[in-house]
Every structure is written in C-alpha cells, then in structure tokens.
C-alpha cells in the first residue's frame, strides 16, 4: 500500500483528494501548511507528495527545495496559478508533474498512478522499450518502427532517450536544452521545436496529434507510453 502526503491548505480540496486516493487503496497523510508538511515528509517517508504551491506559511517552492536534498520522492504540484512560469519554477526546482486547479478526479488519479508506477521501479529493467509501433533498443542504440530500422541523428536519439527514460515526468524546456545542447543553449527554444517536430514525424502515427511525445505548452515536454 502506498503512502501519499497531501500538503494543501484548503480542507475541502483535501477532503475530496483524500477520498479519491483512499478509493485507490492508498494511505493518505495530510498537512495544512509547509512546516507540518515537511515534518510529515520526514516522519512517514511517503511514496508521493501532492503539493499545493500557495501555502499559508510559505511558497510551495520552498517545500521542494527543502525536501529534494534528502528525498527523491516524486512531487505532484497543484497550482491555482495559471502562470506558466510558476509551474516551470516548480519543475526546475525538482517537482515531477503538475496539475492546474481546478482539475477532475480522473486526471488526478491518472497522474498519481503514473508517479506511483515509476516509484515502484518497474520500467527500464528491459533495455528494449516499446511504444506504439516503435521499439527502442537502449543497449544497441537502435530504433525501429513497425519492424523497419529508423535512422535518428545523434541529437534526435539523445532527445528521445532523455524523454523516454523519464516517462510521465514533465521536463522543462530549459532542462532539456541544457541536457542535450549544453548550458549555453538554455534560451534556444527553436532547436527544441525543430527536433521534437522531426522526432514526431519519424515516430508518431499522426505528428499533428502525437500520442507519446506530448507538448506541455509554455512549460516543456512529457513522454507517455
């Protein structure tokens, strides 16, 4: 049974999130502010933290930066702020995914399940990764689609494996650019647009309606199986 820490100041939101998670057979610990939240994180060692960004005694960003040095617990951020830079700041600080308020239960549960699945460490035991018609052989550095070998450039391959090895996590544009092109390219978003576009044309059935390489507009990218 997974333990989930819910740090949120609104009792009604806590109530329905708790009910939903208990329905998923999770144990839910609740905290109404940042200080109790951090204490609870130390005490219960949760498998997942659901964190509201606007807390009465501080910014949720502080929670992330305080937690990250000693725990790699996945963090799902709830943001009432519609401003993309808040989400980007939370993700850059070490959060794994975000949901904008208001959100539906189905969406919440899907995100929670995805994070818990990775927590269980199931993926990447097999060096062969499959999605759709595509098979990526991480050991041989080969990619094939519907049995036919696919030719990816070195950057395309690195970009694909970067996203592929962190499924269901939102990587910000800056994180990807720094990882693939280096620290000097943090602002060169157009590289990312072009390369993601090329990857979609090579890997997706319909590049205009991608199913695996998803855009989080204004924030970054997410890979889903």
């Amino acid at each position, binding site marked *: 049974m997974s333990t989930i820490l819910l740090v949120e100041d609104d009792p009604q939101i806590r109530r329905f999130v708790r009910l939903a998670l208990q329905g998923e057979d999770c144990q839910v610990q609740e905290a109404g502010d940042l200080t109790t939240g951090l204490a609870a994180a130390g005490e219960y060692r949760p498998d997942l933290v659901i964190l509201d960004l606007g807390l009465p005694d501080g910014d949720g960003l502080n929670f992330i930066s305080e937690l990250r040095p000693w725990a790699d617990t996945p963090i799902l951020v709830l943001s009432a702020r519609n401003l993309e830079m808040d989400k980007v700041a939370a993700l850059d600080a070490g959060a794994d995914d975000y949901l904008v308020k208001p959100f539906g239960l189905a969406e919440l549960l899907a995100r929670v399940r995805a994070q818990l699945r990775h927590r269980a460490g199931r993926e990447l035991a097999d060096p062969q990764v499959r999605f759709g018609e595509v098979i990526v052989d991480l050991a041989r550095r080969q990619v094939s689609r519907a049995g036919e070998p696919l030719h990816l450039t070195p950057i395309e391959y690195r970009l694909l494996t970067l996203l592929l090895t962190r499924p269901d996590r939102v990587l910000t544009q800056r994180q990807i650019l720094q990882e693939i092109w280096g620290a000097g390219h943090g602002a060169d978003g157009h590289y990312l647009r072009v390369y993601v576009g090329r990857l979609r044309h090579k890997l997706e059935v319909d590049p205009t309606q*991608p199913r695996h390489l998803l855009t989080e507009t204004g924030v970054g990218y997410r890979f889903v199986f």
Partner: protein
Amino acid sequence: MKSRQLFPIDRRRVRGPYRYGLTLFVCLATAIIAKWLTAQVDPVNLAMLFLLAVFFIALYLGWGPALLASFLSVALFDFFLVPPHLSFAVADVQYLITFAVMLTVALITSRLASRIVQQRIEALERASRTQALYEMARELAGTMAVSQVAEITNRFLSRIPGVHSRLLLPDPSGGLPVAATAPAHLGPRNPAQESYSLGEVIEVPDPVGDRTLIYLPLAAPNRVRGVLEVDTDVATLASERPLLQTIATLTAIAVERLHYVEVAQATQVQIEGERLRNSVLSSLSHDLRTPLTALVGLTDTLVVAGESLPPIHHETALALREQAEKLVGMVSNLLDLARLNAGRLALCKEWQSLEEVVGAAIKLLRPALTRHPLRVNLEPDLPLVEFDAILIERVIGNLLDNAAKHTPPGTAITISGAQDGREAWISICDRGPGFPANVDILASFVRGRTAGASGTGLGLAICDAIVEAHGGRLCLENLPEGGGCARFSLPLGTPPAMDEEVWEEAP
C-alpha cells in the same frame, strides 16, 4: 536718467552736474595752495600739483570733469603762478612749452585714468551679473514645480528697474494664455502664441511711449516649452537683450527638466497601477479557483459514489458536475479577458511550431471534440513563427470549442494551416449553420450562433484580442457550401539560424 545697470555696484565716482562744481573747487584750491608755495617752489614744479589734481578728478569724477580740469588747471597756473601774476599774459615764452606739455599730459592721464576706472566698473558688473545668473540657475535646478520656476524667473527679472515679466506656459492642447498686458493696438494677434509656434523672439513696441513687450520662446533642447513675456523700456531692452536671452534659456531648461520629471512620475504611477492590477487579478484568480477546485472535485466524488445510488441521484450528480465545469470555463474566460484588457498584454513570444501548438490545442480540447470527426491539414514545411504559445493555443482551443459547440454532432471540423506571403494562416472550418450576419460577434459578450449553446460569448473576443496583440487578423466567414470558417493570421519573420547537426550514420 533711468539707470540702465542691472546690478549697480558700489562705485566711488560722484555723479550728477555738481561734479563740475566740485572740479572747479578742487582746481581753485590747488591754485591757492600753489600760490602759497610760490616762494619756496619753482613754478614749473607747481604745475605737477595741478596734474595730480586732474588725475584724481579723472579717477573719481569721470572724463568730463577731468577735461574741464585740464583746461582750468592750465588757465589757473598761467593766471596765478606765471609772471606777470594775476594776468593771462606770459612774460617768458618758455612757459608756453610748459602749458602745452601740461595740457597734453593732463588730457592723456585723465583719459587713461577714467578708462581704467570704467573698465573696472564693467568687470565688476559682469562678475555680479554672472554671480546672479549662477544663483538663478542654482535655484531653478532645485525647483519641483513650474510655479516655482515662474516665481524665480520673475523675481530675478524684477531686479532690473522698470521690468515686468510673466511666464506663459501652454495648456495640454498647445494654446498659450493671451498676454494680459498686451496693448490694445494688437487686435486679435497673439504674439505669445506666434513666438511659441515659430520659436522666434517677437518684439511689440508700444506706439506711444517708450515701452516694449518682448516675447522670448523658451527653447529647450527638445522643443519650445513656453514663452517669457517681458515688459520693459526701450533703453533697457537695448542693453539687456543678451541677458534676457540667457534667462529665457535657463528657464526653458528648468521647465523641460520638470516636464521629464513629470513624465517619469507618470510612468512610475502607471507601473505601480499595472503591478496592483496584476496582483489583484492573480489573487482573484487564486481565490476563485480554490472553491472551484473543491466544487469540481467534490461533485466528481459524488458522481463516482453515485454509481451505486438510485439513478435519480446519479443523474443529479452528473448535472452538478456539468454545471461546475461550465462555471470553471466561464471564470477562466473572464479572468483571461480581464488580463487581456488590463492594459498592454505582455506577450511571451518565442519561435514556435504551428504543428506543435495545433496538436497541443487538440489534445486540450479532446473531451469536447469526441462527437466531431477532426481533420488536420497543415502544409508541410511551415516555418517556425514567433508567438506566445500559451495564448495561441488558447485561440485555437477557443475556436475549436466554438466549432464543436455550435455544430450538430457528427459533422466534421477541419483545421488547416498555410503560408501566404508574409503571413501564416490557421483556419478552423465546420459544417454547421455558420456565423450570424450583421452582428459584431467579436465584441465582448455577444453570444454565439445557435440558441441554447452555452458560453458567455467571451471566447471570440479573447481570440480577437490575442491575435491582434500578435499583429495578426481574425476573420469569420461563412462558406458558400455551408459552414463557418474562423481564420487567423500571424506575421512571419525570420527564424533564428540553427547550427545543423553534422554526423555520419553508423554503418
């Protein structure tokens, strides 16, 4: 005679006609002293005494009395000291040389002496004038309001006797107040306005009397800031024209400085206002979203739980959720529009792929599009376009949502993208009833096409505002074969260069 000096200094020269009386007295006194000394001193040496007297007269009484003293000294010397005494006759012809030398020396020294004195006075006047201008400039530099500038300028000019001045500043429309002291003979002419618009000095002499009105434009480095009206007499004007010009320039610079102070303050206020508006919007957004989140989540919980309840309760729960979702849509539309209307829209522009933003919008709208087959038809090789991806995603999303809401289920929706000259066009076309004619549907709060469809009518207004902020156009048209088509353009630019990857494929 009126004083023409702006800053009379403490001069040791005696002025007025009685200088000549004094001259007469000094010369006579010299003659008496000389007469008294005749027994002991040679007459030629006594001539020196007269020269000394002339020199002092030149120094203290000026050039005119010195001239008189020169001739008078020679005459008195001849009369009292040259034999025969008490007569102008000269016994010894050699005294004629004495007279000539005496007169020449007296004239030259007195001329030189009086000129030196004059120059000293002028130098002192210049220094005092410079000092006064410096003080005025310093005072002007410390002013915080235009009224203070006017007060300082007027006070300074009023130190010139017989001079009155006024500072005329334009109202916001550029009109100057009509000069109150303007003489009646001017008629409808407004010389102040002329001076202001032409940037030239205009003089209006009074036909009777010796007074003149002079209008000096306050020509600051950037533009004419107003007019300085000076009422003075002709003689003062003749001598003080350069000074008036300097004062006008100093005043102009002060007024311009205050203008920029005002501009800077207004900008500061505007920035503060925008910051306040943004913080109000952001806290409003937070305060509205928190209960909405609870509402949506709790009704969702009810829907899930309601599956095991009697159908009537389950239906109620579903209706609740539907209404909650509508409320969410409306609130987010209202907040968006408030943000768009809150002033200059801060666009977060980046070079983006149209294909990507279309895909993201479709993904976002997927639940609303379930009952409509969707066709996407983008031209291959569309270039990157510079836009704010979140806002353009919102535009495409709103247009898709609009098409889905106002068309019967089962009818197709087509998204197309094309490049046309210097613009990229995205169109969302449907097979529904089309847009209503003769209604400005882009204005805020105009409801959509079919009665009963939900929405506050804000969606299209938001789209229009966003597209316009990007320098594009939003057009709504009905297709001849039926259906509505919403098209918007985005200007194309030159995307930044990319270092293309050089690589060799592994064998």
